[in-house]
């Protein structure tokens, strides 16, 4: 049976279609469901093996990106979310979905599994929305979504993506504890500064993973790099037979982890 993924949709979500497509391309059954349906009936989540929070501007992001959706999830879905992870499910937050997970405290989930926010994704240093292609490298040894040490060329597009921890000790705990899923790097793997680190994230943190390795969020959009022709420089290279792009590995592994 195909793993079932719930792609959560709210007012202003705008990457639900391609995120669902990416999961289906690698063998899952993905269903987009409006958050109103889920808050009306939280037990709906029990019918799924995974939850994807796609990109967009949930409720306009006018207070802070992902904040309002995070409040709704905390108010109505705290227990079903933890139950999903406890029974071996996965949670993937991309861009606005990552911002939402951070604001629920589910990522990185160090001082409590959920509900305590120790890090945030603040306004980009440039104070502008930025759409660019970046290189990221996977770091954490326990993410079910990717092996460590892999470098991906993927696009991102956001105005609030600067990872900041509440203090140096928290940041150290995050780095030392293997909570960093991805870092922005230069093309050859070096330390990135603007624009390779497009938002000023501390230590180039581009994504986080929780203690289980089954909850992950990242600012870049792997679903916008699932085909080879997504790359800005694909015309200079021979296309692969499978037309696969750099971001595909995350969805492949996610589905694999649920089989």
């Amino acid at each position, binding site marked *: 049976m195909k793993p079932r993924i719930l792609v959560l949709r709210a007012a202003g979500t705008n990457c639900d279609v391609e995120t669902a497509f990416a999961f289906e391309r690698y063998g899952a059954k993905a269903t987009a469901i409006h958050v109103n349906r889920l808050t009306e009936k939280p037990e709906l989540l029990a019918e799924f093996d995974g939850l994807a929070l796609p990109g967009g501007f949930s409720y306009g992001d006018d207070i802070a990106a992902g*904040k309002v959706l995070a409040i709704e999830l905390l108010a109505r879905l705290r227990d079903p979310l933890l139950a999903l992870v406890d029974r071996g499910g996965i949670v993937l937050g991309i861009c606005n979905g990552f911002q939402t997970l951070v604001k629920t405290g589910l990522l990185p989930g160090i001082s409590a599994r959920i509900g305590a926010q120790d890090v945030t994704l603040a306004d980009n240093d440039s104070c502008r929305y930025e759409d660019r292609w970046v290189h990221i490298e996977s770091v954490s040894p326990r993410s079910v979504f990717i092996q460590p040490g892999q470098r991906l060329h993927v696009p991102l597009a956001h105005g609030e993506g600067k990872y900041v921890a509440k203090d140096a000790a928290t940041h150290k705990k995050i780095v030392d504890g293997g909570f960093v899923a991805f870092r922005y790097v230069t093309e050859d793997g070096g330390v990135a500064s603007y624009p390779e680190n497009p938002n000023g994230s501390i230590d180039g943190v581009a994504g986080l993973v929780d203690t289980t390795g089954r909850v992950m969020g990242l600012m870049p959009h792997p679903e916008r790099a699932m085909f080879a022709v997504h790359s800005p420089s694909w015309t200079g290279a021979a296309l692969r037979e499978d037309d696969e792009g750099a971001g595909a590995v995350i969805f492949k592994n996610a589905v694999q982890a649920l089989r």
Partner: protein
Amino acid sequence: MPSPSPAVFRIEVQVKPAFSDSRGNSALAELRGLGLAGLSNVRSVRGFALALPGGRAAAERIAREALADAVVDDAAVLDADARPQLPAGFAHRIDIVKRKGVMDPAADGVLRAIMALGEPVAGVRTYTAFLVAGTVSADKLGDGAARALGNAAIEDIAVDQPHAIDPTTSGSTGAFTKVDVPLPMGDAELLDVSKTGGLSLSLIEMQAIRKHFAELGRAPTDVELETIAQTWSEHCKHKTLAGAVNCDGRRYDNLLKETIFKATKDLARPWCISVFKDNAGVIAFDDRHHVTFKVETHNHPSAIEPYGGAGTGIGGVLRDTMGTGLGAKPIVSTDVFCFGPPDLPASEVPAGALHPRRVLKGVVAGVRDYGNRMGIPTANGALVFDRRFIGNPLVFCGSVGLLPADKVEKAARAGDRIVVVGGRTGRDGIHGATFSSRELHHESETLDSGAVQIGNAIQEKKVLDAQLQARDLGLYTCVTDCGAGGLSSAVGEMAEGLGAVVDLERVPLKYDGLTYAEIWISEAQERMVLSVAPEHEAQLLDLFRREDVEATVIGTFTTSGRLELRYRGVEVGNLDLEFLHHGVPRVVRHATVKPGGEPEPTLADEVDLNATLERLFAQPDIASKEWVVHQYDHEVQAGSVIKPFVGPGQKTPSDAAVVRPKLDSFRGIAIGNGICPRVGDIDAYAMGLLAIDEAIRNVLAVGARFDECALLDNFCSASCERPEVLGAVVRVAEACRDAALAWQTPFVSGKDSLNNEFRTQNGTVQIPTTILISSIALVVDVRHALSSDFKRAGNAIVLLGLTRPELGGSAYYAMHGRLGRCPPRVDLVRAKAVFTALAKLTSERLVTSCHDLSDGGLAVALAEMAFSRGLGVDVDLAKVPAADGEEHAPSIERDDVLLFSESPTRFVLEIEPQRLRDVERILADVPHAVIGTVTGDGRVRARSLTGARVLDADVQHLAHVFHHSLDLGSAMAQDALRGHDKDSR
């Protein structure tokens, strides 16, 4: 009994001092950018005024759990009338508060958050403040804030002034009076009715209305006159372009119908599905889907309030897509802007105009915030600069949609419910153009009419999500958008051939106190009108409710042939639809063609062409637009194939966007545009052909098909009351006809904006007559699309097309402050051969990369192609195919002419050596030559006609100039950050 009004609190959120405050830093940079000295630090405050029945405890909880970030923010809860304390070290506080009646979209999200916390809330209003450290005076700061941080057209900007903000909405619902407007017999008095009412109806039109109502034996009501004015407006009826014109003796009974429409009709291309009748043009895409394309202008609103004007511009054209057929899904947006020079000295900005930089930044931010939130990639565009656009910028917003092939036809049926969905109706965009009595005017002062609108993208996204579901369930029979004219135009249009009864008190309002006429003509954003069969009414209303979108039945379609308007049971309007849609009197306008141009200049021989090329790359028209492009999400929906910048590091500008609308298919579309107003200063006909040539070059350069390429026209001009302006418009229309017929590239949609002037103390500034041509063409398999970056050293460089001494209106002449007299002239027959040959080359996959030649000519194109991969180029100008005696043009004897001429229909092709023979075979009958090779040394080199080395420039250096000459943000922001560090030490 009314309950006591809840306590109002203000919650002010700031980034903690330990963390960087990028909004504050950005404000500091903006203020310094105005030349304001003495500033050492700026911190930003996000303010929320809340009416809370739960009192202070609720306010504290909301501040902590919803409004302040747990990691980086501090929050303060203040009483409504408390004066916030300035922290130590700060001298001033700037408060920026949206005026009452101006849309505050951020309040929606705050409301949702508070509701999710389970707290009751009676009203939300957001505001912004800045705390300023330094020695600047309050007056100067206020002036700077008005120029850089807020906009007095929609916001109150105060320095060091306590302010009261009322988060609740109010307004009274008193008794109403039906207003009749007797039309006087005297012509002068009659015209006065139009003028004082802001109806923009001419005397002849007013006379026709007077006659119509005289026959009925009654006076029109205010709302009837408004409805006629909206329906007969230039915006809705295109009276000028669809009117009769006498142009120096050439007579057109209907200019558009006899030129552009006729060409499309005569061509009868089978893939043209719906042209010039729906809200957008529709062409075939594949077996199951069509694509739609529409481009609109939003010039005047963007001049007054660039952010709101551009945002509602993109919001409006997206609704055009949603209102095409039974509703297409927007998949790509385009944006083309014409502004004054960004480096204009502040002293030269005329009174009443904003600085072009301010306009540019505001417009870009407006498109960014609306388009990005809607989740639609903004993938193609252009920027043009000219002093005549200072007071009257041009803002073109385009939208491409994907429409199921079985959802093209639509028609409301008698008995169908009229359902308005989306945002609520307020006084937005009424401009006070109502016939309200003095009393009603007085009442309307309690709520400022939001003449300038702010869009709410999330509202529109919700409408889109719900509407497409309803479409696929077949829950409605017809749809159109509420745009100009509001409900009056939307319902009036859908009721044509039927009839309609509308109960205006049913329309959901943002606040009380609107008159029935205001409700009917309000241009409040984010609304669509659907016709719904009674048996689907309940299901449709429920579907929208589940998506948190308001949907309301406001009336019924009938068979009466009349538009019947009622308010609280009283009939306030009853119009004959035949008269409404076909009663506008026709007039003959006079046009004359005036030759333009200046004597052809004789420029001194260029001694250093390297320096010339570098200077060209610094011109705002040529310099990289990446500061704009990177703020747009051009990847969302995961369909992007050829992006605005291509190659490793995305350094080379591309010619057109290639997008794959369906994730499960490699079939794609290419989108390009052509715009060249400078050429129009010499010859409007030449401009028309050149703009079309460029739009087609764009899409062919990325590998699109020439035989499935459609065009859109957008005319912009000063007032066509001036015969020479209308003459230019006629010549452009004739160019569109001629090119469409010659190349079999039909126009499928168009729009015009024909009154773009700006009055200054020194007289009226007219914009140059400007045509924007947008192109859309099929790409059979996007995996064979081409990009414009050179790929490999050793490959041959083929120049396709003929170079002539055509520098009139060129970037090269403009850089020297000259216009010239010899513009690029398109040869329709030869161009067709060139286009056909290129399409064959690309379909046979013989081309490695391709770039079209436009602003800056051959030299600019070659250098741009080399930007991406550390490659270079070496060409021999003696080999450039140039006009000879047979072309009735002088031969070219100057290297600068060969390098910078902007002759049309030319491309640089990179060809692998082993493919040259096949390429030569296909190009046998068109002008072309191998002019050099791609090199590996990172230099752009050219040998002169005499064999001397005339160009030898470092590619990386040119790339640097290209990439950094039009940077409006980061350099300034970084300067400010550095300054801040210095000051705080």
